């Protein structure tokens, strides 16, 4: 296993190993609740909270968790934080909670969170685990916001509820409907692939850092 610096721990998840756009983890929320920027932001923040909380706890308790039941323990810890996030959202912003519906509860099975616990938090000191969680969480929020703005802009002609193009704009309603989620993510991934291809005309064999292998486990 290659040793990483603190800076790498923090920055890696944000772009180079972005959980959604590069590693394709946590696709369900990324597609389901990104029909507006507001929903995307609420989902991103809730996931961020759960990820940081569970990484912190898993990393603190790593010596106490028996190896055989570690996955179940991680899921229990994650489920606890999700319950907290669910109830907080319901109390503070009931409308958004209603719009997100069951998808808040489904943060539990977001493979990105479990993946970070298994691949990182369970092996590293608390500080490192938190840095990694913050980085990955921010990367997730960025991906969700990208999707959310693209879909709201095209599907509704607005950003955060503020109309941008005036009344003559004919919205692409399909973009805020389910197919739009697939199209938007597909387009983003195609665009990223295209940029990468142009940047590195002769691609060198890439050395995948740890974390990418988790995709198989998901």
């Amino acid at each position: 296993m290659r040793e990483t610096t603190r800076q790498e721990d923090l920055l890696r998840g944000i772009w180079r190993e972005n959980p959604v756009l590069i590693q394709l983890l946590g696709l369900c929320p990324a597609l389901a609740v990104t029909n507006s920027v507001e929903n995307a932001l609420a989902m991103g923040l809730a996931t961020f909270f759960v990820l940081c909380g569970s990484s912190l706890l898993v990393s603190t308790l790593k010596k106490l968790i028996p190896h055989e039941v570690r996955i179940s323990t991680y899921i229990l810890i994650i489920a606890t934080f999700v319950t907290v996030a669910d109830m907080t959202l319901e109390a503070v912003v009931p409308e958004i909670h209603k719009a997100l519906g069951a998808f808040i509860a489904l943060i539990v099975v977001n493979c990105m969170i479990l993946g970070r616990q298994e691949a990182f938090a369970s092996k590293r000191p608390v500080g490192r685990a938190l840095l990694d969680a913050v980085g990955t969480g921010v990367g997730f929020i960025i991906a969700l916001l990208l999707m959310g703005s693209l879909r709201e802009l095209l599907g509704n002609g607005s950003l955060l509820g503020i109309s941008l193009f005036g009344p003559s704009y004919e919205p692409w309603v399909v973009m805020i409907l389910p197919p739009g989620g697939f199209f938007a993510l597909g387009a983003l991934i195609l665009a990223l692939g295209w940029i990468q291809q142009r940047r590195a005309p002769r691609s060198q064999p890439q050395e995948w850092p740890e974390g990418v292998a988790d995709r198989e486990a998901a």
Partner: protein
Amino acid sequence: MQELFWILLSAMVVNNFTLSLFLGLCPFMGVSSRVETALRMGAANIFVLTITSICAWFLNTFVLAEAPYLRLISFIVVIASLVQIVEMVIKKLSPTLFRQLGIFLPLITTNCAILGLAIFQTNRGYGLLEGLFFAIGAGLGLTLALVLMASIRENSELASVPEVAKGTGLTLIIAGSLSLAFMGFAGLLSAA
């Protein structure tokens, strides 16, 4: 009876779990490259979903009325353990079936479709029978989506696709088109 039929049909095509609710995307992306694998995955899904539905009904009726805040935690623990037990039983009773479904069962347990089903069922207040029909409908819907996707991908392997679009990008665009097609079923419920 007619209502039960509509629950099944609605879960299967109108609100297809994968194509309109985005649940169970991991297997949809991961194991949809061969029709045969997709079929097995679908069968395993129907199986786990049915068990989940019964579990969720049992928990809701007898346990969780006292402590609703434990819902999420108890769902996931009970479902995961039960699937493990069933897996052991199948391994003992029918090794052939185990070899066909075996590797998929543990993977499915952490799939969002399973927990999603339990939560939707609770939110909509389905009883045991309604829940069962809902689960079977959802499972059939997942299988349908998987098999459709796998057949398209088997064919698209032979197509000349630009290098950059190979892989996930193309799969997502295909999924989008499928989802668009499934939106056509939305009229089915209002017509009824």
